[in-house]
């Protein structure tokens, strides 16, 4: 299994509070991604990173920010959580550009509930 660790795995928070999810990899892969998974929507890309300090927006980036200060860590921050951000969040990594190989390695997910 690819070395990807997400933390926390479960979190319950209240509307308006900040939340940070962490993704840590031991594979030294260049690309890292944050997805959210919701029933009926499959997986949707929030943000991704193509190197240290290099990030870009995905399909559903509003309300989220990311940072990557080291190759191994990719943080997802919800500055002020809303109930619509209740979801399961997955971190993924890839060695090559995802559009070319499509082979992503996923973490086990972080379930976030915003009350």
């Amino acid at each position: 299994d690819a070395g990807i660790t997400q933390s926390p795995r479960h979190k319950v928070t209240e509307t308006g509070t900040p939340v940070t999810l962490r993704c840590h990899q031991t594979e030294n892969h260049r690309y890292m991604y944050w997805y959210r998974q919701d029933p009926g929507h499959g997986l949707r890309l929030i943000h991704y990173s193509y190197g240290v300090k290099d990030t870009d927006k995905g399909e559903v980036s509003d309300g989220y920010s990311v940072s990557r200060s080291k190759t191994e860590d990719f943080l997802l921050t919800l500055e002020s959580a809303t109930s619509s951000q209740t979801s399961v969040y997955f971190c993924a990594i890839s060695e090559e550009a995802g559009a070319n190989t499509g082979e992503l390695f996923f973490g086990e997910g972080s379930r976030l509930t915003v009350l």
Partner: protein
Amino acid sequence: AQSVTQLDSHVSVSEGTPVLLRCNYSSSYSPSLFWYVQHPNKGLQLLLKYTSAATLVKGINGFEAEFKKSETSFHLTKPSAHMSDAAEYFCVVSGDLTGTASKLTFGTGTRLQVTL
């Protein structure tokens, strides 16, 4: 633009019988196509991928898929279902030629149930 449609949200089969999970795609370019599997409370795992080589692609755990350009389909099959195959399956398309690392479109998933 690209899209992917998984035609069944839920499929139920008996153990030992064939599995067919259907996927149609739309892409402005020659696409790459993938199937991922997700077991309960786990991340997704790549089952197989098509990247313009052989149209019949073999994956892990006895699964295979056939790329049919004329039908814009990439259906996933397995000759004989096993209880451990019960999971959610996602069809994924990548056809964007900008070369960025973000141009994958996931289907909404098909939940496979395997009964005794």
